[in-house]
């Protein structure tokens, strides 16, 4: 299921909220579990079985690890962690990457079946959330859940199931056991949710149509300014799509009594690639740091090993974003730049004025999005050539048309990618804000509804993750 649809917003969500709040506290996790599975299975019902397998696997792995530890059997505990990690990664590999591997091998003339599997929705998010649970039990960072239902509800929690933020069990364990519900929490959730809905439906979908135009433009016809306008559109679409989803997740989490961490912190204000990754998809970065980078030795190692560690982390980060070689290229692009910044350029950047850093950061990130967004390598080459002035001239009539049509929405989106609105908002008197909240909330809901009812155009960028 996808949040930004009329059936989710006006049927599923009211049904969840209604049944959740009329149920006694002790049944609420169970109610959520049922709805979570409905949410998950909506697109592909058979994958509910896969989901249940993952839940049971990790739940019992946790119990075995815990028992081994209690009995002082460290070796047994490590084996249990290893086996559950291996199975989780095998599932992820098979369902997400097998088609890529098989089709690549077929390219070399090997006869391997692709199985034509549909990617289970959100598999990249929930496997990352669950497979570290036995690790945390082993490390003593997490307690065993009270029962299978609590654990299953955590794994399938619908607000963050398909597009994050990636939440570790240890962060949510207390809230799974007990959480508070209050009108204040609910109302703040409503506001965050509507902001997220607006980001997704009114900004991301809208600007996405501009990117679609440039993605569909044959490479030989791309002009330099057109290619940059296209990549600007994609940068804004991706950010508002993803952060809009995260906001909706945080908002609906609060309506149900949960507190999730924020996933974005104005990434396009970053003054370097390193800083960008501290602001973009924060929960993914922290996951890789905690479960991959630091176990590899982190940065307390010799320079050569550090470069290797960074290489592994960025290759994995790239591939996590999708089963296609361009995502690997995109990850390695950041590997090269981050190594460059770490060993040399960050010292230079510090001495330069701030605006130089902003331009540098945006330039790096936007060129990166071209690698990310154009999957076909020859088309990607033509797109980059056009961006760097080797296209069909500087601009054409199409560019003028689209610039004029999209200028207002682009300006709004660019401003919305900065903290400006937030700063102004909190400068306004409380009274004015109290009047503005219901007006803006209703206007946002109504406009989003209008776009959703009208639109067959509602692509969801994260099915591939």
């Amino acid at each position, binding site marked *: 299921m996808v949040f930004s*649809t*009329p*059936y989710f*917003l*006006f*049927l599923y*969500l*009211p049904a969840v*909220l*209604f049944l959740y709040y009329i149920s006694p506290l002790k049944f609420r996790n169970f109610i959520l579990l049922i709805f979570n599975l409905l949410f998950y299975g*909506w*697109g*592909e*019902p*058979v994958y509910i079985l896969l989901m249940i397998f993952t839940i049971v696997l990790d739940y019992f792995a946790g119990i075995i690890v815990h028992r081994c530890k209690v009995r002082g059997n460290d070796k047994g505990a490590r084996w249990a962690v290893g086996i559950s990690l291996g199975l989780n990664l095998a599932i992820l590999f098979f369902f997400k990457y097998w088609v890529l591997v098989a089709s690549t091998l077929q390219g070399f003339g090997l006869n391997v079946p692709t199985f034509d599997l549909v990617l289970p929705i959100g598999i990249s998010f929930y496997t990352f959330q669950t497979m570290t649970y036995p690790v945390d039990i082993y490390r003593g960072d997490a307690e065993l859940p009270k029962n299978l239902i609590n654990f299953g509800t955590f794994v399938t929690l619908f607000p963050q199931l398909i597009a994050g933020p990636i939440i570790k069990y240890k962060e949510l364990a207390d809230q799974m056991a007990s959480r508070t519900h*209050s*009108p*204040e929490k*609910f*109302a*703040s959730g*409503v*506001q965050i949710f*509507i902001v997220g809905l607006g980001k997704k439906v009114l900004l991301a979908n809208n600007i996405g149509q501009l990117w679609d*135009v440039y993605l569909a433009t044959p490479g030989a016809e791309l002009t330099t300014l057109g290619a940059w306008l296209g990549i600007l559109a994609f940068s804004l679409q991706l950010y508002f799509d993803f952060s809009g989803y995260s906001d909706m997740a945080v908002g609906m989490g609060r309506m149900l009594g949960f507190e999730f961490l924020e996933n974005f912190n104005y990434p396009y204000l970053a003054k370097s690639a390193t800083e960008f990754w501290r602001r973009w998809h924060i929960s993914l970065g922290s996951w890789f740091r905690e479960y991959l980078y630091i176990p590899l030795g982190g940065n307390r190692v010799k320079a050569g090993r550090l470069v290797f560690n960074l290489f592994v982390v960025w290759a994995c980060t790239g591939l996590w974003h999708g089963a296609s070689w361009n995502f690997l290229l995109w990850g390695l692009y950041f590997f090269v730049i981050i190594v460059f910044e770490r060993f040399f350029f960050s010292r230079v950047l510090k001495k330069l004025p701030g605006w130089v850093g902003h331009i540098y950061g945006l330039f790096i990130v936007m060129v990166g999005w071209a690698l990310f967004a154009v999957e076909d390598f020859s088309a990607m080459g033509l797109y980059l050539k056009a961006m760097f002035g080797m296209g069909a001239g500087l601009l054409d*009539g*199409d560019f*003028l*048309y*689209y610039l*004029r*049509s*999209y*200028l*207002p*929405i682009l300006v709004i989106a660019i401003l919305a990618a900065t903290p400006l609105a937030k700063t102004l908002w909190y400068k306004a008197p409380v009274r004015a804000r*109290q009047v503005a*909240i*219901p007006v803006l*909330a*209703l206007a946002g*809901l*109504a*406009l989003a*509804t*209008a*776009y959703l*009812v*009208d*639109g067959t155009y509602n692509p969801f960028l994260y099915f591939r993750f």
Partner: protein
Amino acid sequence: MSKKYSIFITVLFCLFIFGFGIALLVLPDREFSEQENRYLTQFEAPTLDSVFGEEGKFMTDFEKYVNDQFPLRDQWIQLKAWSERLSGKQENNKVYFGTDGQQTLFAQYTKPTDLAQRVNYVNQLGANLDVPVYFGLIPDKTWVWADRLPDHAPLADDGSTIRDAQALMSGDVNFIDLSDALHGEDVFYRTDHHWTTMGAYQGYTALMSAMNGSFTLLDSEPTLVSDSFYGTTWSSAGAGWVKPDEMYTWVPDNGFTGNTTVTRYPEGLPIEGCTLYDRSKLEVKDKYSMFLGGNQGLCVIQNPDAQGGKLLVIRDSYADSLAPFLSLDYQEVHLFDLRYNRTSLKQYVADNGIDQVLVLYSSSNFSTDANLFLLGF
């Protein structure tokens, strides 16, 4: 936020999502949308097979059902169109807003990639038949009214379709260049892709000059029959601010001499005694089907008072408003629509003693129609 204020915000939000959700479930479902001119998806109860088999058919159908039956659907669509317009967009749902205060709507025009193949079917027809074959393409609204199209609108007819088609013609077919035939403020509907009665008359004079050497000059004025026509382009755009179009007839229902009769074949069997206009269609959304009663595989107009012989027109719906003029000059006008008629053209021409054949399409239909290959048989 105080508790009271939080409750207020909570209630507001819940009223919105619960309210529309319940309204969706409780209100009766609509069968047909006048605004969109299409049938709406109905609810179908889930079955084991539709849920677990057929790639989740129940779920995808249910999503369509909710979208189609959403309370106030038409109003939401118009609100979105307004929002696009106010945010500076020059188009909505693949329809350009004209520069005349967004009153003229243009369906976007995409040039065909397989024009040579399409023209070749016409050439084949010319080679197959012994009677003279004429071919005309009606220029797109985006070409004729380019002056009120947004600046640099990318998806517009630049005249190249007609020019390229002409260059691809063989000697068996007489090409009639209509690219400069239409002039004026009233040759197209603002809300529809079709030409108006006045536009069709200009097209008629250009066609007749080429095929006949003369045409009938009309000294009467066109008659207003409707002032509330909203066409298909308006439906796509959801542009609620646009004023409706006026519709006119020019040739009377049974011709100027009162002897013109029309035989329609909407389902294959003839319906005799029809006239040039079906005025009952003025009461429905699709008012353009007033001309000859709408889509049909074959329609024959007979005018015993005319000078010319028998003309076969292989055509799209633009010919519906053109045919009344053609009937002034031909004793029989046979209108043949390849979408609904699979009769062999060669056979038809021989059986009916056809004297001239005209292949007439709008540029956009000629670029997209999937039945042109039938011309070659």
